[in-house]
């Protein structure tokens, strides 16, 4: 929700980034304020996921120009783990499996690490167990998730729920959800979306990276951006997503080219 006391959370200016020497992000501008929900849409290969990973600090991507301020500070001065502790959260499109590491252990270490950073008390295994079980109810997850290895043998839907569970635990300032809707059946999509909606508040912000409009039926964005060839070419309200769904991405590209030709 857009509100008048909002503060800037993310300010991206002229961002360029490459992977293996190929330029993926080209002069990207993007601003997010607290309380807002943004959706970034666009065709395959437009750079949406790259943008998400650059913000999180994945080492495969090199930032070649531009700046990103996170709550007024230079994000690129922070290592990936420092960004996470500062409140940047990325829900992965393909969460990786970590055999042998119990989900409960992983979640607790993550939670306690972030809590320590914030000067809050850490939880012992028993306290954490109560805490995490409460959060799991939100996502209708079975408690046996805790005993399984992180993401190992999880179905696509289970992995995505696990991602949102981590979001719920870490209470990030900025949550970037990379294709969280992909691979979810309609019931799972509803559960995950409700979870996200409950986590949204006036102090944090959510950026949804998605292909399809259907997620936006459940999580209603304040802004919809269309990305193409590494930059945002159109921004609008939630009705833009509906229009994209019916007319396709080509329409924006054509319209955009027409606008540029006029100017």
């Amino acid at each position, binding site marked *: 929700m857009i509100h008048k006391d909002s503060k800037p959370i993310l300010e991206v200016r002229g961002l360029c980034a490459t992977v293996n020497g190929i330029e993926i992000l080209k002069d990207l501008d993007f601003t997010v304020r607290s309380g807002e929900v943004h959706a970034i849409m666009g065709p395959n290969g437009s750079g949406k996921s790259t943008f998400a990973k650059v913000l999180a600090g994945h*080492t495969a991507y090199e930032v070649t120009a531009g700046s990103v301020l996170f709550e007024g500070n230079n994000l690129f001065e922070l290592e*990936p*783990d420092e960004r*996470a502790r500062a409140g940047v959260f990325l829900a992965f499109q393909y969460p990786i499996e*970590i055999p042998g590491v119990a989900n409960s252990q*992983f979640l607790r270490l*993550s939670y306690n690490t*972030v809590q320590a950073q914030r000067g809050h008390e850490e939880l012992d295994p028993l306290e954490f167990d109560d805490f995490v079980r409460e959060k799991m109810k939100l996502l209708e997850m079975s408690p046996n998730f805790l005993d399984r290895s992180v993401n190992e043998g999880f179905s696509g839907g289970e992995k995505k729920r696990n991602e949102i569970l981590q979001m719920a635990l*870490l209470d990030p300032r900025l949550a970037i959800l990379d294709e969280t809707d992909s691979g979810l059946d309609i019931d799972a999509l509803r559960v995950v979306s409700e979870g996200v909606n409950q986590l949204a508040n006036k102090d944090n912000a959510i950026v949804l990276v998605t292909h399809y409009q259907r997620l936006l039926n459940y999580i209603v964005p304040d802004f919809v951006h269309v990305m193409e060839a590494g930059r945002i070419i159109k921004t609008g309200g939630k009705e833009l997503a509906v229009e994209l769904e019916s007319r396709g991405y080509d329409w924006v590209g054509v319209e955009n080219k027409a606008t540029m030709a006029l100017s």
Partner: protein
Amino acid sequence: MSQVLQNLVNRPYKHGFITDIESDVAPKGLDEDTIRMISAKKSEPDWLLEFRLKSYQAWLKMAEPEWANVHYPKIDLQAISYYAAPKQKPKLNSMDEVDPELLRTFEKLGVPLHERMALAGVAVDVVFDSVSVATTYKAKLAEVGIIFCSMSEAVTEHPELVQKYLGTVVPTGDNYFAALNSAVFTDGSFCFIPKGVKCPMDLSTYFRINTEETGQFERTLIIAEEGASVSYLEGCTAPAFSSNQLHAAVVELVALDNADIKYSTVQNWYAGDEKGVGGVYNFVTKRGLAKGVNSRISWTQVETGSAITWKYPSVILRGDNSVGEFYSVAVTNHLQQADTGTKMIHLGKNTRSTIVSKGISAGRSNNSYRGLVKITPPADGARNYSQCDSMLIGEQSGAHTFPYIQVRNNSAQVEHEASTSKIGEDQLFYFAQRGIDAEAAVSMIINGFCKDVFQQLPMEFAVEATQLLGLKLEGSVG
């Protein structure tokens, strides 16, 4: 991220220091006179001198084994001194009499002896170089008839037991390094659990190599009589030296009917620096004889140190229904080489063996599992389950598996499972994105990988092993 990891890999060896205690060192070189001198120094009986000389003769006819997947310059065995004893009072009645310098060494190692004894209830037979300095809790153990002392003392006090069992599991001419050990061993531990006695506490020995260029030839013998049981812990660390040190120990275990021996090792000898200079050569022969019916021998090892590890703790399953187990974690980093595994020799009926081996290779190291499962014709109904998992860290390390399976009885069931995995950048990124730095991430992944083995360790050892692995590996992904 890689730079952070690089720095962690290059962390210096934590236990690298040399304790300044005067040593009584024999001149370098090996011949019959050296052996006679060792035997005389220790006032040994004639049968033991003969045992040594016989071993020496056998050894002279043997060649250094070259089949292992390890590469190193030939060891000049004439350049080694075969005896070193710390100069101090020979008999000590309490810890107060121990050289304070020695005690400080243990403090530095994080093994506060008093605390260990008091809190953990562990009897520690401290081997410092080659002579035992203090044996604790001996009186308490003696009450139930357990003998736990140095090998030298056992030779003096209980010669009949030593003579009866020494060399019965690992014969004098067994292999090159075992034969050498049998000829020149200086000291070690002796443990005897009489019939029907369950040892009331874990028995523990801390080994430490301390004199430069002194070969260490420890000899350990553990006997569990009918219905007896014991858990024995061996932990090792060594100071950093620039020249290689040879360690060729022999450990023999004998389990009679219904007896149970559990032998756990955490080994952290100096592995050499990141360029491969220095480090201990660890050529060890460990073997257990599950001699009686329903006997059980279990080896658990966490091998993190040594420049070269050549070690195959084995079980000969002679008694019907006897059980042999081998749980191993072997970690190599930098230029370390490890060729380790086990042999399970099934002779008795319905014998069972389990092998769980976890190899972790980082840096430019090479880690090999080599194991033999042998089911002989009389071993009806024998069963083996083997699981060998390798984990690679970084791009330049190697993992190898050499399983040998010989089955000569149709009723046998043998299973072998193997896997190879890798700690990848994407896993570390996932941890980082959840606020967890590379150190903690690697530690968590490794501990998860080694869980099945760590569960077998006694509690306080499991904690130590976890820390050690963290120290060895944190951030070795490049």
